[in-house]
């Protein structure tokens, strides 16, 4: 009898803890969803009296002269460019790092770990200063290049471990079968690395999609802004916030990230585990 009571008590304790955690992590998210569908949204946590898509509809109408949907389009353009640049450059670099040996290779890998851990603000400030003299302030290409460089150390480590996991023997076989060295990489290894390449593209896409500090420092014209900084225009003067529209915008803006992470979820855990035993 006592054993059964103890077991039930254990289960109830576990449940309670899990519920508390779910509440803590869920409340801000649930509020976000509820207020997005509430035409009269406020900070108050409540079930909307009428559920409507009005907030979403309003996103096509200009805020500070720019329809918010345009910021999402900007984000899509910027992130596509960044992800493509970053994927290509990191695959090429990883090819050299895994298929050749040269002096300073170890130091280079270490340097990439360091770069990956530098807080973005440390770079954003001097980049802004440099851009002011290079005439690259308020330009999409300026933002794309800086963002690519910021993400590159991270994706390069992933690319490196991906390519390392594919045996060089395949390439050697292809070279003997008649390919050039580079050709054997393109014809054999690259197709084999396709899942890894897709993962790198998606991860760099969402990283760039969410990036805030760089566009905050570099982009000043509302019509050029990505969603992360365009969002500030929902905070009106005198602390007036358009909660409903902002929540609706936030949800639209978060959706691609959620979808991407759902698809790369498995890989993510492996990657994190790899941080311990590199």
């Amino acid at each position: 009898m006592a054993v059964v009571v103890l077991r039930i008590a254990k289960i109830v304790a576990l449940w309670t803890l899990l519920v508390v955690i779910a509440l803590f992590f869920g409340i801000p998210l649930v509020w976000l969803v509820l207020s997005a569908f509430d035409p009269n949204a406020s900070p108050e946590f409540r079930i909307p009296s009428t559920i409507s898509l009005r907030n979403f509809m309003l996103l096509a109408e200009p805020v500070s002269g720019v329809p918010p949907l345009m910021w999402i389009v900007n984000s899509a353009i910027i992130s596509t460019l960044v992800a493509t640049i970053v994927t290509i450059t990191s695959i090429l670099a990883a090819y050299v790092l895994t298929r050749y040996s040269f002096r300073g290779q170890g130091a280079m890998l270490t340097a990439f770990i360091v770069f990956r851990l530098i807080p973005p603000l440390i770079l954003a400030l001097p980049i802004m200063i440099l851009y002011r003299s290079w005439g690259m302030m308020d330009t999409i290409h300026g933002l794309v290049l800086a963002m690519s460089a910021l993400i590159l150390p991270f994706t390069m480590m992933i690319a490196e471990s991906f390519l390392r996991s594919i045996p060089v023997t395949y390439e050697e076989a292809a070279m003997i079968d008649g390919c050039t060295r580079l050709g054997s990489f393109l014809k054999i290894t690259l197709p084999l690395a396709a899942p890894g390449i897709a993962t790198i593209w998606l991860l760099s896409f969402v990283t760039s999609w969410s990036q805030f500090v760089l566009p905050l420092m570099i982009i000043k014209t509302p019509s050029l802004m990505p969603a992360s900084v365009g969002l500030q225009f929902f905070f009106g003067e005198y602390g007036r916030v358009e909660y409903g529209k902002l929540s609706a915008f936030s949800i639209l803006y978060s959706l691609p990230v959620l979808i991407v992470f759902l698809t790369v979820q498995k890989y993510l855990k492996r990657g994190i585990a790899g941080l311990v035993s590199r």
Partner: protein
Amino acid sequence: MTTVELDHITKIFPPKTVAVNDISLKIRDGEFFVLLGPSGCGKTTTLRIVAGLEKPTKGRVYIGDRDVTELPPRKRDVAMVFQTYALYPHMKVYDNIAFPLKVRKMPKDEVDKRVREIASLLGIEELLDRYPRQLSGGQQQRVALARALVRHPKVWLMDEPLSNLDALLRIRMRAEIKRIQKELKITTIYVTHDQVEAMSMADRIAVMNKGRVLQVGSPREIYHKPKTLFVAGFIGTPPMNFINVVFGLEKDHYVLRGKTFKIIISDEMGRIIEKKLGVDKEVVLGIRPEHIGIVEDRGRRENNIVEAEVYVVEPLGTETIINVKLDDTIVKVRTIKEVMFEPGSKIKLYIDPQRIYVFDPATEKVLV
């Protein structure tokens, strides 16, 4: 006419690992040539230098009469079978075999004809539509062979191709590879650490150790006339026995003295050793397990009978290996007779002085 020639090849991996140390070899047209040696002896590196996957630090490589040292692998017209087969995982068997032809832009119907030809030679026609991961180890092996042979290369290179197969399959593939090689009359370099494989397949063998070629010769030569202690010890199952003895002159006989035994050798042999080394010198006596006789009735021979203590007996069916203790050395004796000895019992052995080898312990070279 395809010969392969290695001219003073040295390969140093930075910072200073000498993988291959000044090797010169001439492989004849149509020959099955085996590079044999323990792991890390440089045999695979040598093969990769021929393939063009590694550049030699020094020396030249010739295929036919062309200097290919600076050429990339694709311009050398060689084919290679890898230890892991390296079948392209994302291509079907057909595409794997066709790959070397497609890369060379051969017309489609010609590719198809060649692929089917080679597939039938290797008996893998039914596998063409499968992916490598759906094949057994033996089947993968055949596909790898097919891919290597499909474009009729000048030279066929194989890097331990049988080491991932189970024992039975290995014996079958040994014969098969040899058959195909003879049928196509293709110059072949084959790397292995397995001396049985080498002995059974090779026209000639190069025994390597520590980056050097110790001896080149036919399997018979390597077996009967090993030039060094290492070669003698590497060939044969079980390998040659080595016993430390002293070479001396007693009355009018040349002898090899152990602690507990004495072997009288021929004058001819003795003179050679005396000339090379002098008398009362320490030497190493080598004798193959199959050349030691077990003496059952003691009357017949008087000389060169030694007494030893039985240590372990290994009955293997067709033969029996008897481990005996002679002086402080474990000596293996191989016999086809079904015999049984109790460990610890005494046994009399006949050592045929015509079949012994004597080595100089300092240079490890053979004296006679």
